[in-house]
């Protein structure tokens, strides 16, 4: 029993010790006039202040001293009216709860500051509980505290500052405010150990922290931006009279100024500010700046600002999508099994219709179906989407990639261009296709000279095919060696080369017909390919082997791929010796006559002079 009573006493002592510090919570608070903001009000305008409403009823500018009648409401119930001016009647207090301080009355506008009486935290612990013995000194904020002695009457503490020394006796729980900037709180005086447990307090400060949330970083022209401004108070005392000002050079901020009563420490408030992205023909960045201003209980101003940049797309945007479709069995032209459906989606986010030109350049192996060109002039209505859709058939199997569609339009005399997003997918077209190419060597020959014909066949499809090559030999040629026909199987990607040699006694420009390959794939799909027709020039005079060599070396090359070079002078080999001789004689005579004009004139002139 005794043991339990002793424990209870100890518990009570511990609780009382702890409660002494809990009592100290009260000294952090003060009943003070809290600055609630500054307002400029015209007659009829009002300021909302935490349940109070201050309304300017009338403004009298006619007298020497301008005056106004202010009405005070609590929860929209009229309570009292005040006559105010900027001189003797500038400060009015309603029921020790609301203080109105009129700064000026000019041009019909009443400028006033509003204060609310409130029990609010002001003091913040600066030096936490510290135990000091007699003679110990601590310093804080320009003040020096020394425990001079501990007696039965209490602890004698000497406080020193620039203003001098102050000595006082403190009991447990006593506190003293030395100025508006410093307070001493003696928590416990231990007379036995002659120690003092104390703490110091100083006024706290609010601190504005701002952060922006925009949802996404890129917006369409004219789109509503999800702009959220998070304002937090990272300080130690409440913040009052918050004003959030938002501005942007390009975007349309619909609520540029927002007011908020206050923000307690460690609290945050989210402001939703409606902003519309600008309507622009070119993509660009916009900058949005928010400035937050607030006040502490004394009216000291604190501010913070935050800026963000957002990307705005042009009001015309385009996207391109490709869909690969299976051909019907009956309609498998070009030896391919699939075709493409190409969709271009045009979006106009502006509030006006716009005529645009859309160009979609296709791979040369793709043929647009039922279209003359892949260029369209279309009108896209305001805030609407327009789709251009067409089909394209691949002429060969293989892999296909697509370029971006290009959209052009005019705005304000300038032309703007955008491209659709890239189509990165590679589309594979299945099918059967054999290409055939025919070459001659040499392209220029003499009668009786051997001409080598090379025919290359390549299966560029993805299926095995049975192919038949037929390459006719014109009657003026005779086959010397090799075979001009071939029949066999070509694997996917496989190739075959046929070489044969011809000879002719004919002269002039001779035509060699195109080689044809007919093929049938595993699915019994048939197709054929034709090479280009070849031309051979045969000289009309039998020449020596030296002449032939010289001609080939100087005029033509063995490689048939360079045959196109002859396109510069295609008629050259047709000139016979007589024609050439005639041409040379005429050229010589022309030169002679041209050069002889001046001497002839001079001759005639001189003869005439001397006559």
């Amino acid at each position, binding site marked *: 029993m005794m043991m339990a009573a002793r424990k209870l006493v100890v518990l009570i002592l511990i609780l009382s010790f702890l409660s002494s510090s809990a009592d100290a919570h009260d000294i952090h608070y003060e009943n003070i006039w809290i600055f609630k903001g500054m307002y400029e009000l015209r007659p009829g305008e009002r300021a909302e202040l935490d349940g109070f409403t201050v309304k300017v009823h009338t403004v009298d500018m006619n007298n020497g001293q301008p005056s106004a009648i202010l009405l005070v409401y609590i929860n929209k119930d009229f309570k009292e009216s005040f006559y105010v001016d900027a001189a003797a009647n500038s400060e009015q207090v309603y029921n020790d709860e609301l203080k109105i301080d009129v700064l000026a009355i000019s041009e019909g506008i009443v400028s006033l500051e509003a204060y609310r009486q409130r029990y609010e935290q002001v003091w913040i612990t600066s030096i936490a509980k510290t135990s000091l013995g007699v003679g110990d000194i601590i310093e804080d904020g320009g003040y020096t505290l020394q425990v001079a002695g501990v007696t039965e009457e209490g602890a004698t503490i000497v406080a020193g500052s620039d203003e001098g020394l102050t000595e006082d006796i403190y009991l447990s729980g006593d506190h003293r405010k030395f100025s508006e900037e410093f307070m001493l709180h003696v928590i416990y005086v231990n007379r036995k150990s002659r120690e003092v447990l104390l703490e110091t307090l100083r006024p706290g400060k609010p601190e504005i922290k701002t952060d922006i949330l925009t949802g996404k970083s890129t917006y369409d022209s004219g789109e509503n931006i999800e702009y959220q401004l998070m304002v937090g108070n990272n300080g130690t005392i409440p913040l009052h009279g918050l004003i959030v000002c938002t501005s942007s050079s390009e975007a349309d901020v619909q609520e540029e100024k927002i007011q908020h009563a206050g923000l307690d420490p460690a609290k945050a408030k989210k402001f939703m500010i409606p902003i519309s992205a600008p309507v622009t023909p070119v993509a660009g960045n916009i900058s949005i700046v928010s400035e937050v201003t607030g006040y502490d209980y004394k009216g000291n101003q604190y501010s913070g600002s935050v800026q963000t940049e957002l990307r705005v797309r042009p009001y015309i945007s385009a996207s391109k999508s490709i869909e690969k479709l299976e051909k019907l069995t009956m309609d498998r032209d070009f030896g391919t099994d699939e075709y493409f459906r190409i969709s271009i989606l045009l979006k106009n986010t502006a509030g006006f219709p716009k005529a645009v030109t859309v160009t979609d350049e296709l791979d040369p192996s793709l043929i647009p179906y039922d279209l003359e060109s892949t260029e369209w002039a279309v009108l896209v209505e305001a805030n609407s989407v327009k789709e251009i859709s067409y089909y394209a058939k691949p002429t060969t199997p293989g892999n296909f990639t697509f370029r971006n569609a290009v959209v052009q339009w005019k705005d304000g005399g300038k032309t703007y261009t955008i491209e659709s997003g890239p189509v990165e997918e590679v589309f594979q077209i299945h099918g059967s296709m054999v290409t055939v190419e025919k070459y001659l060597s040499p392209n220029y020959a*003499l009668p009786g000279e051997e001409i080598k014909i090379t025919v290359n066949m390549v299966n560029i499809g993805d299926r095995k095919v049975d192919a038949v090559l037929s390459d006719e030999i014109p009657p003026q040629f005779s086959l010397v060696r090799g075979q001009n026909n071939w029949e066999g199987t070509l694997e996917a990607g496989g190739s075959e080369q046929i070489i044969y040699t011809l000879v002719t006694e004919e002269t002039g420009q001779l035509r060699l017909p195109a080689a044809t390959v007919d093929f049938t794939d595993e699915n019994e799909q048939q197709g054929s390919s034709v090479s280009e027709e070849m031309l051979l020039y045969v*000289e009309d*005079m039998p*020449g020596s082997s030296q*002449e032939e060599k*010289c*001609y080939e070396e*100087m*005029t033509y090359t063995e490689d048939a791929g360079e045959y196109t070079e002859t396109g*510069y*002078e295609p008629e*050259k080999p047709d*000139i*016979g*010796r*007589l024609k*050439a*001789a005639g041409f*040379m*004689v005429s*050229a*010589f005579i022309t*030169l*002679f006559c*041209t*050069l*002889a004009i001046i*001497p002839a004139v*001079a*001759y005639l002139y*001189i003869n005439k002079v*001397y006559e």
Partner: protein
Amino acid sequence: MEFLAFIGSAMLFATFALTVLFILVMVSSRLSMLILLVVPLLAVIILPGTTLAFLSYRHFLFADGLVPVNNFHILVTVWSTLLGIIIYTEFLTWYLKSGKKKLAGSQKNRSPAQIRGMLNRSVLKAKEILAKRG
């Protein structure tokens, strides 16, 4: 290879031009003109393939491929140059001959003996210089 072809063509044309000039100086201007025409003409008639191939051989392409320069162009250039030399040689020779005669004839009665003597001395001096050079 192209460079060698150009060197070969240039040597051929140089030989041709020097031959024509030699004949012009040593034999006759009319014969040199005839050779100027006849040599290429005979080449075309006798070896048409080779000659045409030679004349049509392209050495250069000027102005981004717009102006090709073949051996034929070089032949025409050589022709025009040598023709010019031959024609003006003939003309100047005639002028100097006929002009001197006519001038001498027209001023015969009026020219004093001193002037005639001076002219004769000048002509003789010129002849001496030419004889030394020749």
